[in-house]
């Protein structure tokens, strides 16, 4: 026995047969392989039954030979349903449009809230955000992720110590901690000033305390420069020694620079693909065709589609393929030496405090071997060499 439920998809129809010899007609139908069901008698000369739409054509033969009258009185199932749907497609379209609008609105940025920032900083943040593309009315797919925004803000706005970016529904919440310009720490505890490194004292400016060294004196690391203990032998007093002791210090840097070097750089050409993903499977919706890049790097980020505050199991994936080029840099020997010197200077600056001055430099060694420039430079630097050392009770 077969079930007829599958006929619902292909469509069914209700047939009314009237006349004489209905039973014979039914026998003919079943013998020609038409499945019929729900056969009911209506009075002496009429019956109704249901049959699948796909068997309608086969009905013709038996219908001709018999003397029955056949009428189709009801239609149901797939094709008829679709037809009905088509006539009412306005509703369907309206529903789809409504859903689409809701989804679009749910994925828009509707607000940016900034907490804990002064008006000036807030203005800066808003400017930076709009440069990043985070603005009211933007779609969240086009906006970068929360982590990128956070990184970008902390990198580009000096006044920020930390910023926490959080996306709650359609609103970005930014929690800001501003940098407080540190005020000069008031030195209250008695201290000595000692030398940080080996140096030649070239300038002394003592605000408080008793100098223990003289100009043009060589000092070793840890040597007392300004004593915090002042007064005569009997009545000594401990004060916080303050001052600036500039010393000449010496540094040696080694720079190795290859004459030929290869770099990988992005050429600026890129191709974007968009995917609609669900459950780990991705369907490409934009960006068909293969890229022509010989070398490339692919970056992809995924954004879930939201409806109100819930996330749908759908996501939009953006894939950016950037062309990569290999660039060969070749220096002539002269250029290489020049660059190496520059590198040495940069290297020394990175090792020194900001207020240090390069007083002189001298190349100790310069050679070109195996396509490599080797440079040893000697720098004379003027820098503050004083460091505080607290005087503890009972030390004296």
């Amino acid at each position, binding site marked *: *026995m077969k079930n007829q439920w599958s006929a619902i998809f292909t469509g069914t129809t209700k047939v009314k047969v009237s006349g004489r010899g*209905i*039973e014979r007609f*039914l026998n003919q139908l079943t013998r020609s392989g038409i499945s019929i069901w*729900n*056969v*009911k*008698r209506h009075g002496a000369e009429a019956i109704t039954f249901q049959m699948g739409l796909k068997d309608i054509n086969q009905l013709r033969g038996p219908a001709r030979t018999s003397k029955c009258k056949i009428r189709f009185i009801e239609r149901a199932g797939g094709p008829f349903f679709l037809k009905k749907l088509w006539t009412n497609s306005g509703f369907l379209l309206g529903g789809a449009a409504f859903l689409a609008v809701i989804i679009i609105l749910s994925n828009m940025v509707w607000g940016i809230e900034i907490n804990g920032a002064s008006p000036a900083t807030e203005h800066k943040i808003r400017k930076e955000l709009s440069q990043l593309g985070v603005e009211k009315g933007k779609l969240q797919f086009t906006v970068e992720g929360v982590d990128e925004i956070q990184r970008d803000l902390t990198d580009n706005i000096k006044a920020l110590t930390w910023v926490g970016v959080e996306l709650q529904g359609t609103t970005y919440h930014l929690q800001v901690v501003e940098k407080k310009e540190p005020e000069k720490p008031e030195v209250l505890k008695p201290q000595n000033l000692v030398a940080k490194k080996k140096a030649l004292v070239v300038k002394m400016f003592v605000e408080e305390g008793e100098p223990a060294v003289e100009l043009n004196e060589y000092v070793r690391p840890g040597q007392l420069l300004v004593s915090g203990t002042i007064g005569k032998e009997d009545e000594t007093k401990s004060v916080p020694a303050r001052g600036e002791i500039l010393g000449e210090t010496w540094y040696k840097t080694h720079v190795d620079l290859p004459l030929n070097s290869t770099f990988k750089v992005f050429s600026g050409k890129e191709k974007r693909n968009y995917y609609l993903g669900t459950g780990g499977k991705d369907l490409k919706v934009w960006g068909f065709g293969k890229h022509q890049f010989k070398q490339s790097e692919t970056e992809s980020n995924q954004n879930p589609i939201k409806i109100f505050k819930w996330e749908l199991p759908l996501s939009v994936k953006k894939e950016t393929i950037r062309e990569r080029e290999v660039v060969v840099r070749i220096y002539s020997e002269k250029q290489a030496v020049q660059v190496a010197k520059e590198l040495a200077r940069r290297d020394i600056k990175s090792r020194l405090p900001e207020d240090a001055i390069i007083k002189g430099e001298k190349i100790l060694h310069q050679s070109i071997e195996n396509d490599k420039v080797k440079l040893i430079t000697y720098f004379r630097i003027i820098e503050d060499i004083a460091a505080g050392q607290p005087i503890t009770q009972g030390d004296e």
Partner: protein
Amino acid sequence: MAKKWGQRIRNWMTQKMDLPQDVMMDLPRVTMIGQIHIYIENHRGLLAFSDRELRLLLKQGQLIVKGKAFVIKTIMPEEILLEGKIDQVIYINDNPGGS
């Protein structure tokens, strides 16, 4: 005569070889579920159908089902499923006086 011989041989074979009788002898197989369903396999066509009576042709004789509010749920060349309230199931043997 030949038909009778064939019948006899079949009868003998089913008895000796322990085969199901409906398969060998083209008998109808009737399954009833209470009074509400009757399922008949191996019939030879519909003879009459109304909401109180169903008459089926068998290989030998006829089968009459009587009751109320009959609806044929499914009909196929050799099977029929009838629904309704079944009161009687009657076999009519193939006699010269029959239809």
